[in-house]
């Protein structure tokens, strides 16, 4: 019965389209629009090539305004030509007393296409070309196809019959074609759209605003999951799921969770906790299992970190909830490092301290505020021990800064004749008396 309904409706649509295509007024309008679009595509492609050859070298160093103009012209030239050609054809046809309503409808689709291309041009001009390219295939083209499809159906059918066709029954609820579309294509576009929007906001907030990248990404991740859950809730609502149905499904799921999904669920909950507590954010520098790493991405199941060796590690979220780890970027990214330096009792301790401070002050990665500090730490057996305290803004540089400071100290002490004493051992060899 259900299938019969779909087929009879499809048959009706089929008849409608064949009837429309058989009308000379429709044929004329379609032909005009197709010719105009093809002409615009050919001319537009030529114009794009000319434009690219003329300006592509200059655009690399250009500011946002110039880039925006470049990409707007590049992406919109075909669309604008199509609009111009279609409008011209419409005026000519209207002057001949021909019908032009279909041309108007198709023109709206071209304008819609122009708007999408304009959004694309703005995004590309902002700079994140790789991200845009990814979403062009996963979001923009599917979205455009869906919009065109719906508009096409509306133009030719002008009916909500199609949307209300029952497809199948699920838990005693009838799933209509519109609901099926919503839970598949609609939900896909919703999720991908949320990701794209989040990425766009992150890009704008960090490149053009003063937002902290880690905090922004953590907030956006939370928002993303929230919006996805809202979308999921709406899908269930459109499927007419009642509380009994949800309870039945939850009951079934709980068994599965107990046996097979417990680890995944544990990681999922841990991920939510980490995000809510803001214990970790993307960009944080942590020491986990004795290794210094940067947090790259927090996902629903795991955290991706990058070590100093540029090796990526995928660590389950639950590890961070159940184990201890050190973060160097909790409230501040500034870290203090200390160097132990020994100098001879024979050298002037004031000269030693002054030299150490000068070395610290000269290093480009050492912060001026808080200022470097030198303290006499200990009177050793062979030397006076000093601690040089310096602050750096990036914990990942601590090893390199230490190394460079040590080298500078060796050079400066050699220049100034400051001795770094070291323990010496005198071996007394006693030979046996011949007598």
């Amino acid at each position, binding site marked *: 019965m259900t299938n019969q309904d779909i087929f009879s409706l499809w048959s009706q649509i*089929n008849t409608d389209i*064949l*009837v429309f295509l058989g009308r000379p007024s429709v044929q004329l309008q379609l032909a005009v629009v197709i010719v105009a679009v093809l002409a615009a595509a050919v001319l537009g492609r030529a114009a794009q090539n000319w434009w690219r050859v003329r300006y592509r070298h200059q655009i690399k160093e250009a500011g946002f305004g110039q880039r925006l103009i470049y990409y707007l012209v590049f992406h919109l030239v075909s669309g604008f030509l199509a609009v111009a050609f279609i409008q011209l054809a419409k005026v000519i046809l209207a002057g001949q007393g021909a019908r*032009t*309503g279909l041309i108007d409808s198709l023109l709206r689709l071209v304008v819609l296409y122009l708007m999408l291309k304009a959004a694309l041009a703005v995004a590309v001009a902002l700079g994140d070309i790789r991200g845009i390219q990814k979403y062009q295939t996963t979001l923009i083209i599917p979205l455009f196809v869906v919009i065109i499809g719906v508009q096409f159906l509306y133009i030719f059918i*002008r009916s909500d*019959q199609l949307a209300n066709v029952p497809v199948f029954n699920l838990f005693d609820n009838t799933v209509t074609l519109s609901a099926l579309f919503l839970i598949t294509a609609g939900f896909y576009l919703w999720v991908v759209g949320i990701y794209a929007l989040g990425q766009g906001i992150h890009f704008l907030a960090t490149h053009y605003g003063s937002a902290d990248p880690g905090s922004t990404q953590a907030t956006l991740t939370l928002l993303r999951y929230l919006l996805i859950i809202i979308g999921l809730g709406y899908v269930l609502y459109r499927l007419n799921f009642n509380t009994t149905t949800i309870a039945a499904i939850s009951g079934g799921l709980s068994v599965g969770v107990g046996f097979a999904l417990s680890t995944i669920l544990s990681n999922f909950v841990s991920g939510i906790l980490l995000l809510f507590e803001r214990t970790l954010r993307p960009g944080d520098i942590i020491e986990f299992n004795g290794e210094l790493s940067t947090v790259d991405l927090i996902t629903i199941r795991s955290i991706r970190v990058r070590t100093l060796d540029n090796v990526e590690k995928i660590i389950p979220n639950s590890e961070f909830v159940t184990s201890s780890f050190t973060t160097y970027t909790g409230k501040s990214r500034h870290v203090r490092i200390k160097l132990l330096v020994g100098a001879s009792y024979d050298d002037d301790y004031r000269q030693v301290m002054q030299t150490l401070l000068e070395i610290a002050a000269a290093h480009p990665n050492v912060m001026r505020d808080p200022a470097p500090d030198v303290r006499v730490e200990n009177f050793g057996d062979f030397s006076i021990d000093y601690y040089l305290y310096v602050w750096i803004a990036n914990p990942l540089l601590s090893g390199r800064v230490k190394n460079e400071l040590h080298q500078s100290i060796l050079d400066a002490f050699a220049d100034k004749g400051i001795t770094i004493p070291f323990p010496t051992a005198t071996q007394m060899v006693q030979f046996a008396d011949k007598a």
Partner: protein
Amino acid sequence: MKKLFCHHKWVFFCLIVLCLGLVACAPSQPVKGRLIVWHTWDEAEAPVIEQVLADFRRLHPEIQISVERKEYATVLDEFAEASRAGLGPDVLIGLESVYAHLLYQNGLAANVNKMDIDWTVFEPGTLQSVQRGNDVRVGVPLNAYVSVLYFNRSQIDTPPDSFDALQAISEKGIKVGLPATFFASYWGITGLGGSVFDGDALSANSQAGIANWLDWLVAFQQTPGAVLSSDTRALVDSFVRGDIALLVMDSLELASLEERLGREQFGVATLPGFPHAQAFSTVELIVVNSASVQTEAAAQLSNFLSNAAQQRKLARTTSGRAPVNRAVSLNPTLFPRISAISQQNRTAVVPTTVQDGLINRLIVEADPIYQQVLEGLITPDAGAQMIIDAVKNDRGGPSQ
């Protein structure tokens, strides 16, 4: 080529799916015509017209039909927008003639005069509603509705057949509901021997005819049972509550009134003063889209819908729609209600397209003056004169 395919793989995919779909649904037998049909009948009556269309499909398997119901309130706009695009139905069923003229005027409805339609079967009056000049017909009559007298059998055994009988009933205190507007009470003018139109213009004695009717209404208003109102909804509600025993109302209300009042108590009769009392008849048409090329199939469908058998079926199974085929006669014993409606419609006034403009001006001018006369603010004579003067002096409306 490979590059072209890769760049436009979505478009190719959609085209392939569309082609497969079209091929899958291709008819297995030769098709001589394809018709998209819209109809405006409400949900309760839609199965009737759809059944008739299904019968046509069985009779003409070589003609494919796609049927869709549209809301009457929005169908005119939808049809106009679609037709301007070259789209829309080939045939629109159930549009009032006045709107069909409007569509034709805008180049959206076809002239069906030259189509292969048997015009001899129609009541001459109904053909008047589709005529536009000598060579143009804007649609094919399908059915008509008209004002009739409804009565509550529990309060009235025999409905009045004259104005005196109506007044006598009201004198007894039995409630009689009459709509006090020009269009809905036009039957009173003719019933009392007056006339308003002479061809497409006002008649010489139009003022006298209106004054005479207003005079009767004023006198009738003094009787205990008289309920005069321009609020037709209020009159209908009073009738179904049993507060009013007699009600003059549009025949399209038949099914609704019968259902609400109860079949046993419900009766329909011709108007008092019949056959002289002539109400306005509203004719519903089959309109052909001017963008359509399926004129042959549309003509076949029109001939089918207007043949005697289908007209009889439609009249018997729908609510208050009178047949327009002159060969259809309905036995008053077997079908008393629709028979009364059909009789009333045969004597009804079917306005021409020119008269429509005049009627619109009369409605605008007369309705408030009717109220003033009934409220005693002006005399019937003065009121009638004001109406005629206002209509004659109105230069903004359609010409006479």
